[in-house]
């Protein structure tokens, strides 16, 4: 009985912790100032949040049904394989697309970018305006090339 209670407490804790991590991950994605910073929330918080939830589920089913439920490990495995790649590729894409950094960002990137992108840009026709975004909101500045 005590063990059940303990398990229940752990499950509850893990659930709440998972929720909080997932929540903060998404919150970070919402409130950080530039894309690269926003990237940090989901790549970590969300992954761990899901991890906690999965462990909770594992524990819950193992305890309630009296047999081992470890399938959730698989989800964790897949998530740990795929989530960082997603983060990496998104960051790479952001870099490639000359996304704006928040002022005060340290370090230098142009060299990296040039390797990827080359020097010249291609002439393109005027871009369609996005319906929800006013002109003013459009990128306020880019890193000096």
């Amino acid at each position: 009985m005590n063990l059940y209670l303990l398990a229940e407490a752990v499950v509850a804790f893990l659930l709440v912790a998972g929720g909080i991590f997932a929540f903060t991950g998404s919150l970070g994605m919402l409130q950080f100032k530039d894309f690269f910073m926003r990237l940090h929330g989901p790549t970590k918080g969300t992954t761990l949040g899901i991890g906690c939830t999965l462990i909770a589920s594992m524990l819950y089913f193992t305890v309630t049904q009296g047999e081992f439920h470890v399938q959730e490990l698989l989800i964790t495995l897949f998530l740990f394989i795929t989530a960082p790649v997603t983060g990496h590729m998104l960051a790479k894409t952001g870099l490639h697309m000359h996304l704006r950094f928040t002022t005060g960002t340290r370090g230098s990137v142009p060299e990296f970018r040039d390797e990827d992108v080359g020097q010249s840009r291609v002439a393109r026709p005027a871009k369609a305006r996005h319906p929800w975004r006013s002109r003013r909101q459009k990128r306020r500045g880019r890193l000096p090339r």
Partner: protein
Amino acid sequence: MKAMGRLLPTPTLSLVLLITWLLLVRSIAPGQLILGAVLAVVIPLLTRGFWEPLPQVRHPIKLARFVLVVLYDIVKANVQVSLLILSPKREPHPGFVEYPLSVKDPLTITLLANTITMTPGTVSTNVRLDRSSLLIHVLDMHDEQALVREIQERYERPLKEIFEC
């Protein structure tokens, strides 16, 4: 032994597959074991062509230690980042760091990059075409050199040891 080698070109993969199978079916009944074993043999054979040679794990114990370290770091990083996000007063100082790579093997680079992405306030952004360095975005950067050193010590060296390269 040779036949064994032909049948099991990648024993680690086969083992992983067998374990995965048992996890999936949630059973260690003899039938599932046999089926899992068959699949663990057949699937690597089927996908042999796609399997570029990867370095073998030489020191499983070091790997286990490494995994634990990373898990710990993930939890730690998350708490840190969560606090950073939740407390509006602290202004993070983001920055880019170019991290010189001493490993050249794709798997190791991938593991390293992914580990970096998963851990303290860092996201790997780009691997140079010549694999000479890795660009890392840091959420809250104070000491560039310390960061590079820490990554070298904490992740790159163990990885090198695990795969002996």
